[in-house]
């Protein structure tokens, strides 16, 4: 199992706890990552200004992976959707492919449509499998209640993902959480974090985040489990702002799934980047270390 690891923009400078934990669990589960230095921004933010440029931009990333003959493993859901949508569009439309390649030729690249793109959570679900995760589990997380937050682009637009999970009633992340031994709380509802419009209208985004944090609070969860850096930036980095705006205390930890999986696999919490979490999951880690003892 070898993949080109696509980090995108946010993770390698703002969410290294996601990157560290993803690399650590991959190693433990026999997944090999290759880092390709020529990967850039996936093109997501460019789409609203110029879809035409964004398509070439995304195709360049796909071409970089194709040159190595590798499938792309993404960690960010927005990267996953952008690269997958462009890949599926270009595979199906010969004229669009020709136009893109005329541009790419001038920067020394060629898009052929041979690289697959999948999110790490999907790879864990499909290629590693929950049975393998269960069999490699070293620490019991049954004292924890965790709420999956699927976000949007891990599942949607569902037409480009071959309907591997339901956009209305998703279950893959819930099953991955259950495989760690933790209790799965109901999904955080109406899953959009509002991250895409944080810079356009922060008031709306913070109000959207509030509805999700309210749900986490009422389910009495130990943490929300995210698989996208955008969602985590909204729920975790902006949680203080939500608290100030709505005069309500939350203190809800937001963990990346590989951090949770890493704990279950018995990986040292230092290697999973917990100290970089903004809402400190102290109580949760204390519960886990009691289990381990």
């Amino acid at each position, binding site marked *: 199992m070898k993949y080109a690891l696509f980090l995108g923009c946010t993770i390698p400078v703002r969410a290294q706890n996601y990157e560290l934990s993803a690399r650590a669990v991959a190693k433990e589960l026999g997944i090999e990552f290759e880092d390709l*230095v020529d990967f850039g921004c996936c093109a997501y933010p460019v789409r609203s200004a*110029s879809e*035409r440029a964004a398509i070439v*931009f995304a195709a360049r990333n796909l071409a970089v992976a194709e040159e190595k003959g590798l499938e792309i493993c993404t960690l960010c859901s927005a990267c996953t959707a952008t690269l997958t949508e462009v890949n599926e569009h270009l595979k199906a439309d010969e004229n669009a492919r020709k136009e893109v390649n005329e*541009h790419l030729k001038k920067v020394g*690249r060629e898009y052929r449509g041979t690289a697959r793109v999948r999110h790490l959570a999907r790879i864990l679900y499909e290629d590693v499998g929950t049975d393998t995760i269960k069999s490699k589990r070293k620490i019991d997380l049954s004292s924890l209640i965790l709420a999956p937050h699927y976000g949007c682009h891990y599942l949607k637009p569902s037409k480009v993902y071959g309907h591997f999970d339901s956009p*209305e009633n998703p279950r893959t992340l819930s099953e991955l959480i259950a495989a760690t031994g933790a209790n799965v709380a109901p999904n955080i509802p109406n899953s959009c974090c509002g991250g895409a419009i944080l*810079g356009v209208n922060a008031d709306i985004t913070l109000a*959207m985040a509030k509805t999700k944090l309210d749900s986490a609070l009422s389910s009495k969860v130990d943490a929300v489990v995210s698989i996208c850096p955008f969602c985590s930036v909204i729920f975790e980095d902006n949680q203080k702002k939500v608290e100030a705006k709505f005069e309500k205390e939350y203190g809800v930890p937001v963990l990346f799934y590989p951090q949770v999986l890493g704990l279950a696999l018995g990986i040292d919490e230092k290697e999973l980047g917990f100290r970089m979490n903004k809402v400190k999951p102290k109580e949760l880690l204390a519960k886990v270390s009691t289990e381990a003892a």
Partner: protein
Amino acid sequence: MENEKTDQDYTLVNELNQDFKYDVSKQPGGENIKYCFACGTCTASCPVRAIDAKYNPRKIIRMCLLGMKERVLASDFIWLCSNCYTCQERCPQDVGITEVMNVLKNMAVREGHLNPTILRQVRQIASKGRLFDVDEFDNARRKKMGLPPLKDGCEEVRRIFELTGADRYVEE
């Protein structure tokens, strides 16, 4: 008088652009806009609309079909779509609403209405190839964590902006 309305408050028939819906439907992603039968599933499902009534996808599509080109393209509200695809997944007429919103944003940009926040992001990507700068400090920090270095700047990306003509939208 406090309640006096001006032309700005009304839709004037002679301002409507009958070609607008055809222009939208010619763009990749806008093809199905004319199938909308205004059921409102999009608006009822929208997580942004649930917070702020300023954003109303059914109304925006209706405005497009009526030909209210200027009011749509110069508006603030098209930039409030959070691209979550919930409306698109649920639309019984396959209007492709999220994609239509993106088409409208692209058309607005061509008319000179690029949202300032998005403009800053796109400028940054056009010049550096990434949304966030990666400097020596970042790479030193990554090295300390045992993470591989990132490349700062990308000539290929700059060139793609020129080749596709998108550079003219981000000129300072």
